[in-house]
């Protein structure tokens, strides 16, 4: 929006720009400018037209909440949280029955800490109302889960030498989660 446009509209767009990705803000700027111009065309003075346009557009909080709901990172995080117990259950069953533990104990402690961090990040992405926070925590959660799954697969194969039964199933669901994480991270990246 040009500098000549009222301060009210510039301030309103700045609030949105602080939270939302550039392309979304550009689209909202175009819509708000059109709304403002339609009031100017109807004869309202600049300040009154700006006030009417902002009122018609809805509150910034309303718009931010609307975009938070359609954030791809939030939707991917919810799918990851749903898939988590399945992947975790498969690995617990596989490791307990085969008695194969990937890597030495310190490495397993690190994997556990990474798992807790990933769950935390994914919860932030799934429940967060701040668009950018949800995107960045979602991408970090996806990267963490993918690294965790890859470590489990490689560690188990190195120790056991082969995968059969429940271990093969756990590797399959982990591979599916790596693919999901990759797709979700790319989609989230496109929305930053």
């Amino acid at each position: 929006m040009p500098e000549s446009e009222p301060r009210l509209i510039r301030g309103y767009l700045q609030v949105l720009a602080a939270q939302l990705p550039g392309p979304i803000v550009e689209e909202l700027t175009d819509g708000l400018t059109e709304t403002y111009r339609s009031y100017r065309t109807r004869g309202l003075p600049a300040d009154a037209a700006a006030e009417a346009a902002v009122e018609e557009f809805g509150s910034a909080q309303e718009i931010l909440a609307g975009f938070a709901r359609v954030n791809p990172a939030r939707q991917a995080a919810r799918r990851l949280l749903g898939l988590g117990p399945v992947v975790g259950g498969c690995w617990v069953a596989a490791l307990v029955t085969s008695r194969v533990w990937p890597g030495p104990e310190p490495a397993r402690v690190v994997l556990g800490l990474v798992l807790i961090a990933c769950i935390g990040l994914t919860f932030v992405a799934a429940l967060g109302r701040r668009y950018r926070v949800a995107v960045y925590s979602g991408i970090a959660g996806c990267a963490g889960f993918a690294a965790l799954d890859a470590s489990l697969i490689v560690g188990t194969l190195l120790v056991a030498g082969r995968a059969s039964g429940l271990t093969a199933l756990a590797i399959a669901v982990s591979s599916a989660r790596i693919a999901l994480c990759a797709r979700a991270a790319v989609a989230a990246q496109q929305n930053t």
Partner: protein
Amino acid sequence: MRAEELKGHLDAVLLAALEGGPRHGYAVIEALRQSTDGRLDLPTGTIYPALRRLEQAGLIAGTWSVVGGRRRREYRLTPAGIRALSGRRAAWQDFSATVTAALESATRVNTALENAALEDTACPSPNPA
């Protein structure tokens, strides 16, 4: 009509607004106002997340252009969007016809009962006692 009353039908209404050809966000709102004689009172800004959701679902596709030095995003229906609109329109017509029939039937029954009560008042039945 407020946005909350439209809940569940916003997607179909937005798809219908794009049926006539590609439109940008503000033009969608204008089309809805014209087609409903201004009875649809939506906060303009709230349709943008809805358009994004429809795009993510593959029902509409957005493209950028530059108009008056500003970037503008225009949306058009995809083949999946055309099918979805057709399905939602048929479902709405079915729902609307069913509810209208039920409401009109209830009105007819109530009118008949009221008429019967009036007739009873005008001509009371003889008291056997």
